[in-house]
């Protein structure tokens, strides 16, 4: 056994003093060292069998903003129940919502939970919806959990387990797994450790300018350091791994001769849908799928009336494109309505509107928005990576060639294609990539813009286009399962996450 380093000596002395299983944070606190450094020292000693290092996992819970506000104001279903009781036990739904001071968006939630808890029932009378109290007192284990947590109580009793589960599901409480490291001296090496600790260290620690100048260093022994230690984890500055991935995609595209472009998050439906020949009554344009912007403004402008007229004609009767169009009237009110762009393709069209002459190659990687609730596989925001190529004589085979090339440059070796369907391209294709563990995954949807899309812009050359989900590619390459990790709010995770090309 070699001699101990300074760090090892300090930690071992502490452990010997405790002589029982002790949390690493406690030791680190007493030594005024960072947890990571102590863990790293313990790790190296554990490998030599001098100490035992264990990890224990346990759950922690904390209130979210919403949860905190309910502690203060009461759960919406409680407030609704109280309002019904205050109104005599039977009240019109709207009246009860108003009395409870609930906002419209909280109405659905409060009614749903009050019914599920068996507090209220819905009755219909003469076409109006009435709420009727079914119990005298509304008791909510969810509320009990919130109150306990707000008092800083971390131990939730088992009888409130279902309340806790519901509170987590309703995102009133955030649940996290925390790891705790614990260490103790290895029983069988105690004697050896005592003798190690009793040896006094000799030799010098620091070489100084004086020692160098005087030549005194020739007479010194230098105390050895342990250079086999696992380096301590530190928090230096670095980029976000997802941004590094996006930077890389951009580099790939610039390398293939593509120009980067940009466009606004808030769009008119004109650019988001109509110029792309998405019929005005298409389901994807309804509120379940697409965010509308309603405040402070709800409609925007059409920047080019001549173009507007051509787009309108294409929808109504195909205009001069040879198409039948959608054979339905085109609404100006609808086309000027504001929305959050649901894909990056409007940016491609804005680019073509400004650059209608061949040849062109453009790309954009940026955010889009879809009306989704945030969970492990859905997010209200996602990054799409769009590219277009316009030139004379381009074909479906060329589109496949480009998509295959982009995939190759991103390290995807095997790509195959099947026909696809998008309202604005024909032919449309979908590229599938072979992933080592996930199998064939859909990565590259694309197509050739329909004449109904390009002719109104005065374009007759083929325009190849694709719109790849950048997040999906990143998740596949990083083996990320939860889409929320793309925009992780966990600093400790971010400090350790990295992207390697």
């Amino acid at each position: 056994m070699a001699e101990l380093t300074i760090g090892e000596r300090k930690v071992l002395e502490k452990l010997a003093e405790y002589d029982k299983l002790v949390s690493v944070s406690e030791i680190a606190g007493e030594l005024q060292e960072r947890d990571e450094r102590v863990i790293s020292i313990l790790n190296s000693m554990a490998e030599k069998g001098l100490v035992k290092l264990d990890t224990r996992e346990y759950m922690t819970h904390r209130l979210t903003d919403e949860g905190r506000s309910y502690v203060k104001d009461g759960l919406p279903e409680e407030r609704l129940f109280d309002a019904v009781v205050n109104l005599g036990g039977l009240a019109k739904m709207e009246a009860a919502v108003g009395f409870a001071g609930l906002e419209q968006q909280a109405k659905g939630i409060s009614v749903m939970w009050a019914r599920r808890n068996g507090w209220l029932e819905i009755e219909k009378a003469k076409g109006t919806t009435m709420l009727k109290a079914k119990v005298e007192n509304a008791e909510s284990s969810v509320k009990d959990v919130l109150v306990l947590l707000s008092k800083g109580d971390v131990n939730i009793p088992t009888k409130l387990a279902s309340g806790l589960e519901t509170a987590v599901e309703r995102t009133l409480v955030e649940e996290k797994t925390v790891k705790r490291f614990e260490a103790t001296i290895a029983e069988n090496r105690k004697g050896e450790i005592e003798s190690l600790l009793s040896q006094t260290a000799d030799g010098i620690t620091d070489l100084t300018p004086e020692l160098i100048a005087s030549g005194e260093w020739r007479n010194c022994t230098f105390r050895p350091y342990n250079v086999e230690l696992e380096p301590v984890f530190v928090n230096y500055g670095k980029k976000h791994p997802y941004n590094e991935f996006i930077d890389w995609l951009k580099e790939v595209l610039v390398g293939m001769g593509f120009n980067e472009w940009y466009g606004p998050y808030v769009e008119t439906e004109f650019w988001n849908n109509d110029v792309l020949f998405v019929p005005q009554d298409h389901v994807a344009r309804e509120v379940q799928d697409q965010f509308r912007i309603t405040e402070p403004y709800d409609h925007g402008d059409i920047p080019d009336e001549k173009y507007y007229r051509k787009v309108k004609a294409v929808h109504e009767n195909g205009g001069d494109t040879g198409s039948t169009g959608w054979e339905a009237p085109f609404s100006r009110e609808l086309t000027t309505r504001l929305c959050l762009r649901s894909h990056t393709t409007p940016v491609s069209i804005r680019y073509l509107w400004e650059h209608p002459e061949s040849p062109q190659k453009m790309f954009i990687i940026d955010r889009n928005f879809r009306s989704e609730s945030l969970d492990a596989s859905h997010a209200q925001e996602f990054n799409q990576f769009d590219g277009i190529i316009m030139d004379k004589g381009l074909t479906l085979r060329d589109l496949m060639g480009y998509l295959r090339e982009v995939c190759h440059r991103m390290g995807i070796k095997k790509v195959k294609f099947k026909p696809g369907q998008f309202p604005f391209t024909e032919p449309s294709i979908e590229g599938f990539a072979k992933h080592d563990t996930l199998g064939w995954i859909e990565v590259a949807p694309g197509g050739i813009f329909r004449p109904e899309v390009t002719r109104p812009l005065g374009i007759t050359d083929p325009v190849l286009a694709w719109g790849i989900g950048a997040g999906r590619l990143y998740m596949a390459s990083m083996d990320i399962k939860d889409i929320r990790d793309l925009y992780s709010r966990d600093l400790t995770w971010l400090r350790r996450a990295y992207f390697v090309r």
Partner: protein
Amino acid sequence: MLVECVIDELLKLVRKKLTIKQLENALFLMKAEIDKADDEIIVIEINPDRTDMLSTEGIARALRTFLNVGSGIAEYPVKKSGLEVIVKPGLKKIREFIACGIVKDVRTSDDLIKEYMHLQEALTTTHGRNRKKASIGLYVLDEIEFPVIYRPAKPESIRFAPLGTETEMDGPTIINEHEKGILYGPIISKHKKWPLLIDSKGNTLSLPPIINSNTLGQVDMTTRNLFIEVTGTHKKTVDQALNIMVTSLAERGGNLESVTVNYPDGTSIKTPNLTPKKMRLEVKDVIGLTGLSLSDVETVGCLQKMGYDARIKGKGILEVKIPAYRTDVLHPVDLIEDVAIGYGFDRIEPSIPQTATSGKLLTITRLKNKIRDLLVGTGYQEIKSYVMSSPEIMNTKMLRNRPLTTTGNPKSREFSVLRNALLPVLLDFAAQNQHADYPQRIFEVGDVVMPDSREQTRTKQVPHVCRLIVDTCVNITEMLTEVGFILRNLGLASRIEFAAEKAPEFIDGRAGKILINGKTVGVFGEVSPEVLNNFGIGMPVVAFEMELPIDGTWAL
């Protein structure tokens, strides 16, 4: 859209034995995909444009030609029934169109009826836009006294027992209380009169597009002869829905008969009309768009494989007949795609053309990257946040009251506005990371959105940079030193000025603003304890936020 098929039934209709693997390969090349499969049932995902494939029968029909069991358009003879539907005046603004057909000797069983209902539902949801544009009703033919009358009716005068119940209800009750009424009522409830289908004895067939009656609309396994009607607001959609429905039933051995619809203006239309539409296709356009070298004959072959009839009219010119159950052919490019599918996507060899262009990043991207590099150099961790946020984070907690771009249909309040600054987002991040090691030095470079009535989309989108230091002890001088380092390395040394600033989010006397060419572009300071309290942050914070020029260069 998912379609569930019994494998044996599907293969019987295809008239060919196939393994699941062969089936999967064929469907993959035809735009469809197997979602899941076991020994008996296969669930197939159909692309929304192929409404003709929303049933086992439709999928089988497409597979037959694709696998060369059949070729070209499937023929379905239609006999004249001589029966009539009379449309009364007053429906023009309510639900103008109706198309009807009869299917006799159709095979029925519990499972088959479920499948017919499924097709009806799938068609009205997608093609019929949730019954708004078109809805379908199936009835027991032999119990109806013709002619059938389609007329507007006062809601209170409507009275019948809706399908599945024995109790009669009036119109308003159905709309307000029946499950389907609540769901689809809004399509007609805004009108003074509602569309009603009755027979000559005065029995109600249905209240389109809501619900059938229990007497005439109850199709079960004893039913052999069906009356089918489609009503709606768009003629072509109505006709196509009927065509898809009746041809699917004909695939199950039913014999089709037509019905004459008499409109109040005197026009009389025989439906279903299964006459194919004609479209001219030039082979040079096919070659031009696909890059495949195809002869006229080969092109015709590909089209027949995709269920079209096609003949060569002249050199390089084809006349293509489009089956009446196809709804997705608007333009010759739609035929061209099908030629490529018929040719086989697995046989198409990708190529790379020599379109020579020089690529570059946007100037603003280069500026953002430079700032990110400088910030990483000064020891900051980059973070990436959602653009959507809440008014609490943006305004309330920040003691601000700045205009916010707001969505009217948020899924949660947490994501209901667009961020108009980065500092609140970073403070929120810090609040969620109080267990992480200190010091915390974090930054973000990203766009923020401000309402602006002068802009085309009523918003101005501006790139911002923001960073925070969170620690047990922070120092505004340290922040100022680093801001100086960044700005000097952006070449702005001679153009920047700093001035004291008063803002509620910062401690008085510990805040400053940054001016470039005399214009305020940013702020820095020590965050006020009140704001820290609002976010629930227990540590002091110094912060800096600055806007970047949209085009990536600061005007001189």
